[in-house]
């Protein structure tokens, strides 16, 4: 076979390979969305982070505004310290509320930021004080069972018996979940 023909085919081969790699990086991977320019880092303490992982998204109003950079354990307060890198384009007030949510029923966990009303904005190295822990399903169930056991046995045959029971079933267990650190969002 001619040497120039071989050169041409190898050239096509290598170009195809580079194109495939670029395609993988751009179309399949997150190289384009990964680099979010300049960022600032804030920390938030949580009593329980559930299944939150580094690189989990930080969302506000459903839009990804940053990523979880690092998760460490503070042995002085026995809390998890989560540092978040947030895009410089999105400033948040100082009294922003950080929640750990789950995407879908079995999906990954992410941090949701809800803006407060403070005039001053969060700066690099600041700490978000108002946080809400991840919902732990076992805790929720045990709380529910505990409430069920604590309530007095409903008198049977009473005409009003269904109403308090419905209240206890529907309202009380869910209301108490996750309100330990702070409850003021407004």
């Amino acid at each position, binding site marked *: *076979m001619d*040497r120039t023909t*071989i*050169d041409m*085919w*190898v050239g*096509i*081969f*290598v170009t*195809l*390979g*580079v194109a*495939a*790699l670029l*395609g*993988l*990086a751009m*179309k*399949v*991977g*997150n*190289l*384009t*969305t*990964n680099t979010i320019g300049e960022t600032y880092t804030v920390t938030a303490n949580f009593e329980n982070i559930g299944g939150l992982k580094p*690189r989990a998204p930080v969302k506000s109003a459903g839009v990804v505004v940053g990523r979880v950079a690092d998760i460490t354990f503070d042995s002085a307060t026995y809390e998890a310290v989560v540092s978040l890198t947030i895009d410089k384009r999105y400033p948040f007030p100082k009294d922003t509320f950080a929640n750990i949510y789950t995407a879908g029923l*079995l999906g990954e966990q992410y941090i949701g930021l809800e803006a407060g009303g403070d005039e001053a904005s969060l700066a690099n190295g600041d700490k978000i004080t108002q946080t809400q822990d991840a919902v732990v399903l076992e805790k929720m169930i045990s709380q529910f069972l505990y409430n069920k056991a604590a309530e007095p046995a409903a008198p049977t045959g009473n005409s009003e018996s269904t109403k308090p029971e419905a209240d206890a079933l529907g309202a009380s267990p869910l209301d108490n979940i996750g309100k330990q650190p702070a409850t003021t969002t407004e």
Partner: protein
Amino acid sequence: MKSGILVALVRGFRMVGRRCIDGIWRLGAGMRLFWLTLISSGESFRRFHLTIREVYFTGVMSLIIILVSAFFVGMVLGLQGYHTLQKYGSSEAIGVLVALALVRELGPVVTALLFAGRAGTAITAEIGLMKATEQLSAMEMMAVSPIARVVAPRFWAGVIAMPILAALFSMVGILGGYLVAVPLIGVDAGAFWSQMQASVDWQHDILNGVIKSVVFGVACTMIALFEGYDAPPTAEGVSRATTRTVVTSSLAVLGLDFILTSFMLSV
């Protein structure tokens, strides 16, 4: 009677010992050839057309088998993934499944297995026959190092071709999965790509896949070269060496894959 059992036992031990020593000897000889190839590979870069010629034979000629099998592997992944995922009502995650399976594992591993069968056997048979017909000795007589002239260009060609083939395999496989998932089954195209982009990481998934394919390229090519260089100069010897190339390369690829994956997932 008793001595008969003893003799059989001794013979058994002897066989195990010989196999063991033979294996270690081959490993050492292979490493020595690897080292010799590395230090005498300057010429394969100075006279780069030698390497390009081998890239043509190992890479370009393997394209068809790699691309066709990638297409079918991607389509099968799409079908199988859809049937399992729809039970959990998350058939949009099919893009993630296909992409991660291909980029992390199937791309490098299946490419390396096909490469060993398509290109590795050719290398072994070629070098084995060169040795059997005393072409290698003739080169040495002319003061041309056969390692620099014959072995090193083939080695570097394999190392160059393997990552390219693996990247093409992943890309074509994902296209195959897309064809099954979106036009055939009716998964939403936007969800297919966006979920894929959200969970495939450039560094942890794609770059690690490329590293894997480079390591597999080194292993497969080196095993093929060593088996050819070490083959007894007979027709039977070359045929045995070719068989051993496929067996050893496949086992090495699968074993190395486990080791590399355990390192990559722990980091």
